[in-house]
């Protein structure tokens, strides 16, 4: 583990221990089995949010992740239901398909910046929803339902992944799967940010013209980053489709795209793990306020406003303590 301080390693160790052993223990002790699904959702949404965070990293506000999540969900569903693929192969295929779409769309639109890029990605979300409604392969308005659960995989007769359909408790299985994918995503993200590509991205975030003038191939980097970002979106969406066993044009819509972006803001744009924390607080927070009935929304939004009012650089800025003065 080169380049990591022991403090970082301990932090990661505690984190891994918490999600794989701590959470199941706590849930087992308190009997709050419903939290498994909530936390699974958090993990999956955090994967998609990680992609949005990455586009922020090259200085683009991305309100289009819902589009790629929906594309991912549909690709996986179509491959599983109509082509009979195993879910586990359709999952990376969904991510890759989303990435290819991102490259094709990214070529023209990544030239845009600021609110213009934000807007065009917002429109993209609507375009994908409407396309899903209009195409025959997506089953139009009727959506795709009755998607089978992920089947098992065995290599040379040795079972690698169990068959979800034969399981007593698919909740736990989905929870672990989502967590593993989330950790892989954030490990990749961390690696990327601390690589040469990451440094180039930071230079682009500061000033694209300057970066370009010193020989950075900015259009290439933009496309690569946007493709990776959308890959994450496709993964998250495909997993969700598998849990719900159904996909509709409204499975991911503009509100989801906006939420992915808010997750990044709330966690803090300057921190790799910001989107993960932001997703946890925004999504889990809503569930925790369940007891307040019709005042749920009021309290939720008030808390949100207060957080951003006093921590404008995101939740993680407390730790650094540089919020407040620019």
């Amino acid at each position: 583990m080169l380049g990591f301080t022991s403090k970082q390693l301990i932090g990661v160790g505690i984190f891994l221990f918490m999600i794989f052993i701590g959470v199941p223990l706590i849930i087992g002790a308190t009997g709050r089995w419903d939290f498994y699904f909530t936390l699974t959702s958090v993990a999956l949404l955090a994967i998609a949010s990680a992609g949005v965070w990455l586009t922020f990293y090259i200085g683009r506000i991305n309100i289009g992740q819902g589009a790629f999540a929906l594309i991912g969900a549909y690709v996986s569903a179509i491959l599983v239901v109509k082509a009979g693929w195993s879910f586990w192969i359709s999952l990376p295929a969904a991510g890759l398909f989303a990435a290819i779409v991102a490259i094709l769309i990214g070529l023209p639109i990544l030239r845009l910046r600021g609110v213009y890029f934000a807007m065009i990605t917002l429109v993209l979300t609507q375009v994908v929803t409407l396309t899903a409604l209009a195409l025959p392969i997506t089953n139009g308005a009727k959506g795709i339902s009755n998607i089978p659960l992920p089947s098992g995989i065995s290599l040379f007769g040795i079972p690698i992944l169990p068959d979800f359909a034969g399981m007593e408790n698919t909740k736990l299985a989905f929870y672990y799967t989502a967590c593993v994918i989330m950790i892989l995503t954030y490990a990749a993200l961390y690696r990327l940010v601390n690589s040469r590509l990451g440094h180039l991205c930071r230079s682009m975030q500061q000033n694209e013209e300057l970066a370009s003038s010193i020989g950075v191939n900015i259009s290439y980097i933009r496309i690569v980053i946007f493709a990776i970002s959308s890959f994450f979106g496709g993964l998250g969406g495909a997993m969700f489709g598998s849990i719900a066993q159904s996909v509709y044009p409204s499975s991911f819509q503009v509100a989801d795209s906006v939420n992915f972006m808010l997750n990044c803001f709330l966690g803090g744009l300057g921190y790799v793990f910001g989107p993960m924390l932001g997703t946890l607080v925004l999504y889990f927070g809503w569930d925790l306020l369940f007891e307040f009935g019709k005042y749920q929304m009021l309290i939720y939004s008030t808390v949100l406003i207060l957080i951003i009012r006093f921590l404008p650089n995101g939740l993680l800025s407390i730790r650094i303590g540089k919020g407040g003065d620019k």
Partner: protein
Amino acid sequence: MEQILANGVYLGSQYAMIALGLTLIFALMNVLNFAHGQMYVIGGFVTYTFYGQWGVPFVLALVMSCVTLAILGALIERFLFAPVIKGSAREESTMLLAAGIAFFLDAVILLVFGEKQRGVPKIVDGVFNYDFRLIMPYDRILICVLAILSIVAFIGLMQYTKTGRALRALAQDRTAAQLMGVNVDRYSMIGFALGAMLAGLVGGLLVTITGVNLGMGGPTSIKAFMMVMIGGAGVISGAIWGGIILGFMEAIGLAVLYQYGDITYLLIFVSLMIFLAIRPQGLMGKPWG
């Protein structure tokens, strides 16, 4: 043909008014106000309460909508946006604040005004019918004229008054405006209040035609974003053109493409994306807004 033009003018004028307030706020503070649609809805509900419920004259109810929203806008700017802009490292963080305010206003609207669709009695009865080639109810014509008058009044305000000049200076260059002796904090607040007031005014006007319900907020914001992008972000004339163009696109698109049914809007959105990809700064915006 006449009908398409008339529909376009009517839609365009109301869209332009919605876009104006949004673009003003964006020009002054670089804030993409996600809560704009909710402000529009509140404007509609205030007029509904005064005119529809309590029988106050329509014009007075409209004034009440404007006043309510202006005060609301000023408070939001003073106590939320201004401090957040000062304290945040990247100014996009205001998007989270704006979204939070949008959720908050949605919750308040639901608790205070309820979940039902509301409407008010017609202000004028009757339909203008020219040989079945051009059909337009009189109240629509009236609202359209009022909207155009408001836009003209707004442009006059921006062009010929001290406040308007200060706001324009602020939009062009904040620092320079400050150096020239413009009270930046005060005029930011006035500008935000003015933007919110426009949302309230158009909400009040349209409640007579379309009615109002709490669900209209979010979609209205998104539509307003699109118009602002077509015309160019932060440019007043751009917002007006953007509104008119989107209005005509819908009117013409629906008339020409109706037999393609489900994909009319898909085509509108795709052409919008292509337009923006070709001309990223919109019709008359500064590039890289």
